[in-house]
């Protein structure tokens, strides 16, 4: 095979020139390849790193090891069937959020209105899922910094929350719980009381977490002042979600562009000050407490009534058009763009995953810090590689 005739001969085929990572002759830089199967990378992500002594001098993120062609699959499925794919092919640690953003877009496209009770149930399960996702995120940081006990504690707390989701929908990770026009099951008897109890037990353990990990001298040494970020710089590199909030910039779609019924709840947006690894973790812990507040209010206000809109066609065919929906997932803003050509299947779906934008920030955050800090920094970005590659 000769050279590609359509490609001008002077343009290199790779966007990132190899020369950046080649060790210069006069300095002691060297290239090290981390991944794709490195336990600290939170997924199959490959980091081509240029090290100057122990410090990271350059970084290139290589992705695509977990591509499952979500957007193409969706073009061959009917609208209700897509829900089975969004919650496992995209961000599987926050599956409810993915289902919801798809449902928001599809319901907008189809003109379906959701009953009140279903909206509240969606809020409750989604916030529980946000807490479960954050617990994995901060627990994995313990694993990264050599504190596996903390990881197990977080996982045990998450287990209590996942049990709640298992009770309401029968699944623990890939809940296909949302449907177009509502949710598939009502809450089982006594579920709301159990939610209250589980939330209380999880929140009550936070002081002991603090004693074990967050106030630990080692963690302070490993996190404070590491990978600091200013709000201006954060906006420039496209930060969102907890990373943006940790810099002190107050931005949360639930508050600033309320979707569903989030304008009815009273809750705060926790923010940090310096945007370093420590603040990003603290923001997540505070967010869990705010999520618990939202759930408490939702349980108090939840009305009786249907939980699934009736007369939803089994194979809906929306009018030709397009719809976009976005919401705040634990990792930042996710979005779903749907185009219909009037047929029973989406003509096109575009998925905006938060993790993709998070790993794109990694070079800007990690350069200048040591190789051991790099693992922490990846951990605070909390990437789910399924959401990066889709």
């Amino acid at each position: 095979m000769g050279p590609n005739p359509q490609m001008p001969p002077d343009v290199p085929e790779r966007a990132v020139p190899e020369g950046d990572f080649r060790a210069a002759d006069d300095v002691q830089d060297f290239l090290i390849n981390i991944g794709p199967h490195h336990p600290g990378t939170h997924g199959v992500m490959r980091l081509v790193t240029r090290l100057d002594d122990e410090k990271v001098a350059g970084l290139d993120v290589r992705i695509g090891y977990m591509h499952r062609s979500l957007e193409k699959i969706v073009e061959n499925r009917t609208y209700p069937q897509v829900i089975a794919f969004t919650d496992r092919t995209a961000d599987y640690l926050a599956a409810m959020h993915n289902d919801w953003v798809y449902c928001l877009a599809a319901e907008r496209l189809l003109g379906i209105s959701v009953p009140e009770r279903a909206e509240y149930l969606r809020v409750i399960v989604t916030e529980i899922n946000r807490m479960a996702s954050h617990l994995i995120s901060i627990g994995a940081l313990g694993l990264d910094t050599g504190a596996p006990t903390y990881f197990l504690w977080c996982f045990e707390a998450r287990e209590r929350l996942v049990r709640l989701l298992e009770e309401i929908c029968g699944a623990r990770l890939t809940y296909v719980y949302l449907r177009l026009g509502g949710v598939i099951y009502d809450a089982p008897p006594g579920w709301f009381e159990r939610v209250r109890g589980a939330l209380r037990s999880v929140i009550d353990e936070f002081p002991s977490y603090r004693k074990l990990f967050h106030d630990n001298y080692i963690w302070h040494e490993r996190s404070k002042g590491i990978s600091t970020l200013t709000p201006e710089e954060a906006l420039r590199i496209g930060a969102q979600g907890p990373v943006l909030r940790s810099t002190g910039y107050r931005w949360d779609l639930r508050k600033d562009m309320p979707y569903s019924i989030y304008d009815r709840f009273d809750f705060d947006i926790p923010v940090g000050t310096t945007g370093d690894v420590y603040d990003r973790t603290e923001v997540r812990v505070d967010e869990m407490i705010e999520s618990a507040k939202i759930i408490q209010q939702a349980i108090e206000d939840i009305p009786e009534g249907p939980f699934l809109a009736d007369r939803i066609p089994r194979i809906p065919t929306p009018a030709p058009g397009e719809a976009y929906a976005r919401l705040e997932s634990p990792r930042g803003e996710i979005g779903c763009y749907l185009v219909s050509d009037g047929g029973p299947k989406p003509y096109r779906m575009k998925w905006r995953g938060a993790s993709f934008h998070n790993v794109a920030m990694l070079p800007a955050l990690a350069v200048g810090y040591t190789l051991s800090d790099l693992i922490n920094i990846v951990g605070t970005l909390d990437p789910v590689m399924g959401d990066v590659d889709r």
Partner: protein
Amino acid sequence: MSWESLLKPWVGMARGHMETLKQMVSPPVTRMYPKEPAQLSPRWRGPLRLRGVMDHEPPPVTDAEPLGFNDLMTELHEQRRIAPCQGGCPANVDARGQNALVAAGRYIEAYNLVRRRNVLPAVLGYVCNNPCEDVCRRSFLDDPIAIRQLHRDCYEVYDREARFPGHLENLVYRPEHVAVIGAGPAGIAAAYDLVQMGYRVTVYERERLPGGLLVTSVPLYRLDRKVVAQEIADIAELGVEFSFGVNVGVDITLERLRAEHDAVVVAAGYTGGRVLPIPGHEAEGVWSAIDFLYAYCMGEDPKVGPEVVVIGGGDVGCDCSRSALRCGATLSMQAHVEDREGMPAQEVEVSGAIEEGVVLLSEWGPDEILVENGKVAGIRLRKVASRFDASGKWDLKYSDEVTELACQSVIFAVGQRLNVDFLKGSGVEFDAQGRPLCDQSTGATALDGVFLAGDLATGPRTIIIAIGQAHETALSVHRHIQGLPLTEGRRPPVHPPEYYLEKPYAPNPPDFEHFGPGGRRVHMPESNPRVRVRTGEQVELGWPKGDGHREAIRCMRCQTHVCVACTLCARVCPDNCIDVAGHDTGFERRVERYDFMMEWCCFCGFCQDVCPTQTLSLAADFDYAERERREFFYDREKMLRPFDKPDEMPNKDGLP
């Protein structure tokens, strides 16, 4: 060697013991987790399983004698095992059993089965408003089963091949004598049930022929009078006595009926017409719908037209506007206050009227009838401004816009009036509107031994509701005569419970190849609307031989907990891991193949949600490990595997 160095080990040891003591009294740092295995949630999503499949079994028939029917329905209802068509029917006619028997070629058995609950199957096959078809689960796939037309098809075979009256199953003869007032559908239904229970029954009818409104009000083009006569003759052969031309209250008093009989069932219906008291309503040429239809149906040839305005948008209004075209009218207009979509008439009636040339005047109400020389010369109509108030309650408001139409006849189809003066002063209680009061579930009145049946008990409703109510009244009469408590252990007739309607509709899924057995609904041929107006022939012409069979094998035979190979699960699966093949010879329906690729399953539960017979469920197997990979291929036998857990997990409907 100093004292300190000698003491040092002892001090250390003491400190160690102190520390040990502290540890013993302080709460443990490690957590103890419970040793017992975690309980699975009732909604746990494990591998699929089937509760049962349809396989070489006799067709499902829900049948019981009149005395046992209520118990049977109560039991089935508690188990949530009523087929939707049967629960949707006010008289609980077993349409599924009818379809299964017709599919097996057993038309006459099907006819007799329907007659158990619907005494005039063929008549209802012409004129019923088929509530069963509204809840038919086949409409999730394409079109509902033509249950009503099948009633008629069964009758035609029965009429052609086996003219014999239905058999009397209950051979108990009881000496008590029951009087039934009115030979309409409700009266005949009550008489039929009572005669099957062994009582002597006499039906008193004002007219010279039986049938009630079936012969006096249902237009000729909708119902063949020969069918009514034949079916009622069959009832008479069972032993029901008819006494025609007896007007209770005039020819015989209620007191005398009560004295001569052990119980009296009043099924007199709403037989009076109603005319709105607007200016000019007493002019010549103003009809009430009942009077007009009576004159048309009884061959008195009412002179209307040539331009006719019918007031009212219900079924009766359509009957009047269409009948007027057959009585010499050249222009038939129907004014109604509702808009076209909100008309209370059945859609098929309205479209039939439009085909025949009826002009609909939507959202116009009557204002004044213009009279010349004591005769109707025209009508002034007023435009409707709004029909509902802000809270959605009915509140009719007219605007200032009026129009005048020239016409020679005005027919009011605005409801019916009671004609039960013989009940007044007898002890039966009446409400403020002058309607007789009775217990809604039993039909018993305040007067001992007098029961109401049909429209009198329920208010003017449909024929099948009247028949369903009459069955209840017959049971009450039996209990009254036997001295049993009327309501004990008895449930009111099962109307569609919520679980029939929970599945969303999918009209004509465009994406999938057509559903296997039967194909689309077999439509009954209709006569040419322009011709039938002149000749007066029937609208529906009946199926040619064989079409009924083609329609009946479309029935999915909704049985609870039995797979009927409807293939909905295979279509809804996002991973294409289910393959179902049904085998339908007409005489037998079975599930030939049910293949499930367990490896591909993503446990989304879509198949469980759509399963119309509640047989497919995600079992609560937690550890689905197998020794070999091929074991993950589940065939029909493996899908029917016995369940590990002693108490089966309920699915989302809470079914056992």
